[in-house]
């Protein structure tokens, strides 16, 4: 076998990309908007709700377009459910702003415009980060939060798919035999 003096660095043969793949819509489209804060209730029992609108083409979400109203404590509930049940590190929520709930403030407290905007942006960032996480997408609580009219706090927590997702973001080989290649059919870490 005569050996080359210089290594062959030419690219490996690859399939040319299909134009519909190249110019088609991405398969990972996921956009969630948190907007339109509305104050609900009267006097001391007022609270703010936000509209949470989701647009996606990920097959894991039943509705490709959904729109629900949620309040801050709903986001807290979601965070707690995910921290308890899923193995992911849940990103932080914007602050609880307890000080703003005290009386005798000079401003509107919890309903001050600049504060609402800050909180809205924080909630939007939070939900986008969560919803994009493949392990969070498996949790029923996330789907209920995003796509059901109201949150049933007495729901039975669980995974959306009965077959468990991988415990960490490592690949599972789904390989089949390839000419000249190795075969591995076992998940590796």
């Amino acid at each position, binding site marked *: 076998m005569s050996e080359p003096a210089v290594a062959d660095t030419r690219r490996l043969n690859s399939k040319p990309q299909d134009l519909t793949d190249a110019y088609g819509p991405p398969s990972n489209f996921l956009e969630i908007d948190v907007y339109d804060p509305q104050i609900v209730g009267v006097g001391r029992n007022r609270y703010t709700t936000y509209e949470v609108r989701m647009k996606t083409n990920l097959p894991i979400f039943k509705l490709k377009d959904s729109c629900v109203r949620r309040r801050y404590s709903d986001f807290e509930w979601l965070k707690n459910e995910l921290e308890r049940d899923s193995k992911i590190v849940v990103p932080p929520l914007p602050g609880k702003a307890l000080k703003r709930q005290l009386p005798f403030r000079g401003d509107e407290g919890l309903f001050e415009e600049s504060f609402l905007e800050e909180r809205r942006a924080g909630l939007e960032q939070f939900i986008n980060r969560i919803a994009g996480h*493949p392990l969070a997408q498996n949790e029923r609580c996330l789907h209920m939060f995003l796509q059901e009219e109201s949150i049933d706090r007495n729901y039975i927590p669980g995974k959306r798919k009965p077959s468990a997702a991988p415990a960490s973001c490592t690949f599972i080989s*789904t390989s089949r035999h390839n000419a000249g290649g190795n075969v591995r059919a076992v998940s590796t870490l």
Partner: protein
Amino acid sequence: MSFFGFGQSADIDIVLNDAETRKKAEHKSEDGRKDKYFLFFDGETVSGKLNVTLKYPGKRLEHNGIKIEFIGQIELYYDRGNHHEFVSLVKDLARPGELTQSQTYDFEFTHVEKPYESYTGQNVKLRYFLRATVSRRLSDISKELDIVVHTLSTYPELNSSIKMEVGIEDCLHIEFEYNKSKYHLKDVIVGKIYFLLVRIKIKHMEIDIIKRETTGTGPNVYHENDTVAKYEIMDGAPVRGESIPIRLFLAGYEITPTMRDINKKFSVRYYLNLVLIDEEERRYFKQQEITLWRKGDIVRKSMSHQAISAAQRFEGSSNPEKSQSKNAEDDS
């Protein structure tokens, strides 16, 4: 006799016969310093002279024997007291007696077996050295000369590519391919990543070379992982059907040949780690072992016949005539 510094003593010095012509190789020491040592291969003869120079001329040096040893040993850092010697040769140079003047002794260790490559790692060290000793009643005089040994291989007869389809269900499917499974230390890894399904938002992709040093046996096994290289191969999000090429030159990195179960004491293995990072800094990775081997350098006409036959001790079959003609071709 030497309590008060009045007794006779001597400086000893080991000099190799081929010190002028023998190549030196760089080797990292335990504290990270890089030094150059004489380079030897399996089967080469180690010969030289031991110079014993008396400190105070005219005075006698009494001794219980002068010897020189050639030692190959493995030292585990967590068990420093025990050195595991896998090569131990000794030549007696002088019987107990006395020296009245400085003296030079010739020694030769003929066609010494050096089965393993010199290695200094995080938990283990394998080294070869000459040790000369002038034995005395109270304190010996000794000197060590370290050498470096490289183990050479030739192009393996079987070197299949690595090709695999991996994925996370409904989330990310890729097919990756590396052109070989065995690479020499100055080789190029040529490969490609083909995206079958991308449902996450990928920010970039890199390939890492990970060195794993394993020491110990049974319940006391230590693994030390070290990322030897990180090489970004894609910046930005891929689209379905896209092929990303890989071309990674190994010569620039600090790597050694793969060592498997050396003297049943340690292993050094290498892995390619393909890492995809999404927009939230989540990492998706696939590790794949590769075998690294050391290719013999181009044989120069001036190289000793000894070294040529040593360089022909190959893994896998190789016809000595054929490899000599190959070397002659390369030597332009």
